């Protein structure tokens, strides 16, 4: 009954009806620190696993060591965050009660569980003290397989989370489904590469530097496309607190990647600073995207206006 207009708008908004300005769809009940945090740490775990796989195959032992340790740490934080977010954490194992291809969360639970195997193997290979001596040889021999397996499964871990968000009625997540996996893949690559730049010795950091560049380029171009293509439901990526966070994340990614590409070869300090910027930017990107979705559920315009336009277009034939 009551048309409502936002502050200053980039996309002119048609007058629309709503029930006392109330939202139509529910706000996600996920806790931001847990779930946006998981999007970030899951990406770091996956990107680090990719670097570990490459380091294994190209004989970069220091790089392999730091990326395997990072991957395990990030995976540990991921798992804790996911269980913590549940309304009934003691029932977390119900996630593996069934396998449901229609549920990205079910697919993701299985994927993450599978990913944990090579990640843990790689970890204990780096910290042999954790393994009983008779098994150390076995762990060592499976190491290359674990590294490659971790990288392959990691490609799924880094991207399925985009489907997880998009397969909802949250307007700004759902509409961004063609681009979101590319943003997430890019963010995972640049964030993990940033972390490797901080931790790895300069002599072995070449691939991390290149991966930071490639990942950042992917992430920035895909998020640019979201903002240009989406129209009204793209607004939360550009405006509101979520949009400001998105802008800051992009600025940090850009400056981090420029610095790491130009300076990190010569200076260890530059590598650490630019790597840390990329790492933080990856986190900020995930929080911004999470918040953009939440914002889009709170104003009924984001639900009603696009649906009304679609319905009218169909009626016109």
């Amino acid at each position: 009954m009551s048309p409502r207009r936002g502050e200053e708008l980039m996309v002119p908004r048609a007058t629309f009806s709503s029930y006392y300005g109330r939202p139509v769809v529910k706000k996600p009940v996920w806790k931001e620190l847990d779930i946006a945090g998981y999007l970030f740490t899951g990406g770091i775990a996956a990107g680090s696993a990719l670097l570990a796989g490459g380091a294994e195959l190209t004989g970069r032992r220091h790089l392999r060591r730091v990326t395997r340790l990072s991957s395990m740490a990030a995976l540990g934080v991921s798992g804790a965050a996911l269980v913590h977010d549940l309304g009934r954490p003691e029932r977390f194992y119900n996630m593996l009660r069934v396998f449901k291809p229609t549920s990205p969360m079910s697919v993701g639970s299985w994927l993450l569980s599978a990913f944990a195997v090579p990640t843990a193997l790689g970890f204990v290979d780096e910290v042999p003290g954790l393994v009983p001596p008779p098994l150390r040889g076995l762990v060592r021999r499976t190491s290359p397989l674990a590294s490659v397996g971790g990288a392959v499964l990691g490609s799924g871990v880094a991207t399925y989370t985009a489907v997880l968000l998009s397969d909802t009625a949250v307007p700004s997540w759902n509409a961004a489904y063609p681009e979101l996996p590319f943003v997430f893949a890019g963010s995972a690559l640049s964030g993990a590469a940033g972390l490797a730049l901080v931790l790895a010795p300069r002599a072995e950091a070449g691939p991390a530097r290149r991966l930071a560049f490639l990942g950042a380029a992917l992430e920035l171009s895909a998020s640019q496309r979201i903002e240009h293509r989406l129209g009204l439901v793209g607004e939360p990526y550009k405006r509101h607190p979520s949009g400001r966070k998105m802008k800051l994340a992009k600025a940090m990614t850009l400056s981090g990647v420029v610095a790491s590409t130009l300076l990190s070869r010569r200076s260890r300090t530059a590598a650490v600073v630019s790597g840390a910027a990329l790492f933080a930017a990856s986190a900020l990107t995930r929080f911004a995207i999470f918040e953009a979705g939440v914002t889009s559920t709170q104003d009924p315009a984001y639900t009603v206006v696009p649906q009304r336009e679609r319905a009218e277009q169909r009626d016109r034939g």
Partner: protein
Amino acid sequence: MRRLSGVEPQVAADAGYTDAPPRMGFFTDTSICIGCKACEVACKEWNAVPDDGYELLGMSFDNTGMLGANSWRHVAFIEQSKPVGCQDAGLAGLPTGAPASERVGQQVADVMAQVDPGALGTDTGAQKVEEAAEALPPVPDEGDPRRDLRWLMSSDVCKHCTHAGCLDVCPTGALFRTEFGTVVVQEDVCNGCGYCVPACPYGVIDKRPDDGRVWKCTLCYDRISDGLQPACAKACPTESIQYGPLDELRERARGRVDQLVEAGVTQARLYGDSPDDGVGGAGAFFLLLDEPEVYGFPPDPVVPTRDLVSMWKHAGAAAGLFLGLGIAAFTGRRR
């Protein structure tokens, strides 16, 4: 694999039932709803649904606000300066002022925009606009006097969709399709992941914060299994809420629209009855007298899973690129 969208005539059979009973559902004819809220009360009583706070929302006779974990029926209330068919509202000759409903609605919407809308999603009763509304200036008495008046009342409920977003995305199997084609949560399985909450295009299902699990209308699975009507339909004094086999309800609803249009209520239309809509048709559908969004319904809801295959294809391409860029980073020239 079962269909993710489109027309699906055998909902229960598609979910694996053999010899399933006919699909059951609700037809809510809002043209005869009197806003008594007996449905809300009966639902709470029968299903032992906890209270959602005794709040006055300050916007209308509706103090429930919206559906949620503790509100499985919600009666919307809207006042408009529009006529109902050929009815005479009896306002001529009365000392009526200018119609205020539009403006009051706008004021409530403005207040809603100021207070934290985040409280809305998890606790339907938590949104108190009355304090903020009290601070508003009174509606000025200007303009043409009111000539028309109608009240729209509509009892909202879970749509028990043919293609249900909540059910599709549930990772534990807690949500399931019953033999009646309805969608029900098993509270002993739900681990409170909350995925179903944003997956519902109607904003129906929600999490109880103190309980951690999600809850919604079961279409009184226990009662209908024993051949009884759901509590809300049983309690409805005007038969605005009708329960029965979906096919019969759809036919009856079409007849009712024709009857209303003939009587001059040309705005009468069905919402959620069509098996080829974005959710494959709702198991609970409505006869409305205005656009769906006026009642708080999405005008063209689509089950998010409709695009799931395309979503996975895009994710697959991104995963391939993820690996490809990794290979490129390691095979690039040494610098």
